[in-house]
């Protein structure tokens, strides 16, 4: 039987787990192939049946001198093991040991640069999936991300030249073909399928890739809470730990709103203390159909949740915690459906939350923009998960 290996190396949270789980299930359901997984986190929301073919991914080796505020794609590569020959050698060997054991016919990489690089020169079909953030367009140096200021192309070129020399040295050691530019290994694949739409791509691309649209597939056990009783606007919030968490929770528990919170990771320890008659706090992820009649969604601007919120035609308050989310938030803001409060620096003041909530709940423009966007961007016009699965299936026929 043919084998497909799905790898996930970087990033965290449901934004990666959900689409990979959905794709894995679809592949298992429709193809005569055994599907294997190698993920960096044995995430609790992954279904147990997928663990039966799950290999722990090799650890990401942090750079010895990390770039503090990575601004470009190459900065990110530098920080996750492309900074030294030793790191590259160890990681490539580790991934190749996995390939030798699994012997995949198709490799599907989601935010897995080292896994993809390690496969270079091996007889395997390669598929790149993920949002635009994970897949750089061709070019040397790699073009700047949308909406992120301060991108110094010359600095990037210097960084990439040194990185390319290191990468080629290690590729040669492993008998793999060298590259002429750093992003070659992202382009030398059999299929690039971006699980996003052009409006929410993280790069401006001269040659558009295959946009599959966002596929919603929330894994694991979902909660179906009811709205707390009483009056007031309904707010759904998906919150992780961040500097302003307490301030926001105080605001949300003022009694003026009816609130359902999915508190992820360590945010649970904080958020559960705010549970009340008008605030429901859930540890498991919340099924979005149970909050479809919300007036507002608050999140950290994860790519998937933004799409799912737009599908519900709801306005958003976005609290990005890192660069990728900053771009997502800026994309959403650009189409007029969201307000953004930066949470990567100083903790936001209570007044900032107060003002944003007031505008998003009081002004009709945000909801109208969400409705207009949804109507002009019907998710059904994108190929989606089934088409992606079919496209991958062609490599195992």
């Amino acid at each position, binding site marked *: 039987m043919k084998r497909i290996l799905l790898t996930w190396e970087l990033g965290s949270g449901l934004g990666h787990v959900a689409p990979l789980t959905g794709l894995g299930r679809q592949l298992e359901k429709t193809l005569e192939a055994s599907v294997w997984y190698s993920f960096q986190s044995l995430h609790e929301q992954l279904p147990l049946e997928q663990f*039966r073919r799950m290999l722990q991914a090799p650890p990401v080796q942090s750079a010895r001198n990390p770039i503090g505020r990575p601004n470009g794609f190459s900065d990110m590569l530098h920080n996750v093991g492309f900074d030294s020959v030793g790191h590259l050698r160890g990681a490539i060997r580790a991934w190749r040991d996995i390939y030798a054991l699994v012997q995949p016919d198709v490799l599907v990489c989601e935010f897995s640069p080292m896994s993809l690089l390690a496969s270079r020169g091996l007889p395997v079909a390669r598929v790149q999936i993920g949002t635009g953030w994970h897949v750089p367009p061709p070019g040397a140096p790699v073009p700047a991300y949308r909406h992120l200021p301060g991108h110094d192309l010359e600095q990037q070129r210097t960084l990439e030249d040194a990185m390319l020399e290191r990468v080629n040295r290690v590729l040669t050691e492993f008998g793999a073909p060298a590259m002429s530019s750093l992003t070659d290994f992202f382009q030398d694949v059999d299929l690039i399928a971006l699980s996003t739409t052009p409006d929410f791509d993280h790069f401006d691309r001269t040659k558009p890739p295959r946009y599959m649209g966002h596929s919603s597939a929330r894994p694991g056990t979902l909660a179906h809470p009811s709205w707390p009783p009483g009056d007031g606007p309904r707010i759904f919030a998906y919150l992780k730990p961040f500097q302003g968490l307490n301030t926001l929770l105080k605001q949300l528990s003022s009694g003026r709103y009816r609130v359902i919170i999915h508190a992820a990771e360590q945010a649970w320890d904080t958020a559960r203390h705010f549970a009340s008659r008008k605030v429901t706090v859930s540890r498991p992820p919340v099924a979005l159909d149970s909050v479809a009649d919300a007036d507002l969604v608050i999140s950290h601007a994860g790519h998937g949740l933004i799409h799912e919120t737009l599908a519900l035609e709801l306005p958003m308050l976005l609290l990005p915690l890192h660069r990728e989310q900053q771009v997502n938030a800026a994309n959403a803001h650009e189409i007029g459906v969201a307000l953004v409060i930066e949470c990567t620096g100083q903790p936001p003041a209570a007044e900032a939350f107060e003002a944003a909530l007031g505008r998003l709940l009081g002004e009709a423009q945000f909801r109208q923009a969400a409705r207009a966007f949804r109507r002009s961007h019907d998710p059904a016009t994108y190929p989606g998960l089934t088409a992606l699965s079919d496209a991958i299936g062609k490599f195992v026929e």
Partner: protein
Amino acid sequence: MNGQSRLSILVTWELRGGSGHLMRLRPIVEQLARRGHHVTLAVSDLIRAQQFFPDLACLQSPQRPGQNPGFPQFASLGEILHHAGFNDLGMVKRLCAAWQAIGELVRPDVVVMHFSPMALLAFQAIPVRRVLIDNGYSHPTATPRMPDLRPWQRGYVELQDGIEEDILQTINAYLVEQNREPVAELPALFRRVDSINLMTLPELDHTGPKRHVHYRGYVEPGGPPPPWPESGARPRVLVYLRPFAGIGELLLRLGGMRWAILAIVPGHDQQLKARLAGVSNLHLTEALCDLHLAARQADLAVCAGGDTVGIMLLGATPVCMVPYNAEQYLTAWRAEKTGAAVTAGSPSRLPPRSDEIITALNRLIGNPDYRDRASEFAARYKDIDPARELSAIIAEIEGEGFP
């Protein structure tokens, strides 16, 4: 051995870090590979393992995601299991499934496990030969309760009983689901194997002597002869320590005592080297040498409290122990009872200060009883032969029917 009898052997190491674990496994793994077996490793420190085993496949062992709250200072093996996820049936199922996924790919005839409790549970459900390579810290006594890893302090028995009861229920729920008999007590899980090999000796077993195990002493990693400084008739002191805040001061004070000192300090910096440059009776190096030979040549040793303590005592060399952590302190605590070793500092502040180490060292030098006890210890084990013990371990791994 012919090609047909080659075994697929999965070697696992799941908990804790550091080179010591890999050093313990290396001679065994190398010998297995030399005998033509197909060896795959699944280990907690993958990148370091690649350096130890450049020609073997190394996988990352399944890791519990996130942090399990509580018990940062483990007081029992039960707390270590709790921290590893044994308190959560969902986590146990996921981690065991991930171990079994490795099993499905490697198709092992034998699983050799080192400090790998989740692998041990996962491979209960699979018909393979199971062999443990552990020491007294990672292998429990044959008593209902898991052993105390901090016997010098007051325990909190009721809490620990509660933790162990939770873990026992979780393990049994998993075993029953896998159509396996539940265990009556936690330590029983660790006896559901074909062979238990502890890389220590009864007196130095962290949690006391055990009857149901093979004590194998300490592997002989080999290495070059110890590069002693020119000693003349001066006594030889072996120092084998990792860098810590007071190491420069300690070595300078030792240098002032006019002994011939070989200081093996892996990972030391240039500053330390420069500081000791003028000390002619001290040779500073990062490179490990043949410790068994060094033990026979040294007059006394200063080390942290791991396997080196046992190796030194087998060479009739009394030891001043400088524990960095509670596990090493536990070895030191046991070693002191032999009368051949002294421990610097106290468990409440590790590692000890250099003046505490000098005080302990002076105790050792000032009392010939320590050397006598060390000689007696060595005499008790004069017949122990690392090469023979290694062969015995290999035979246990291969099982019956191998030449």
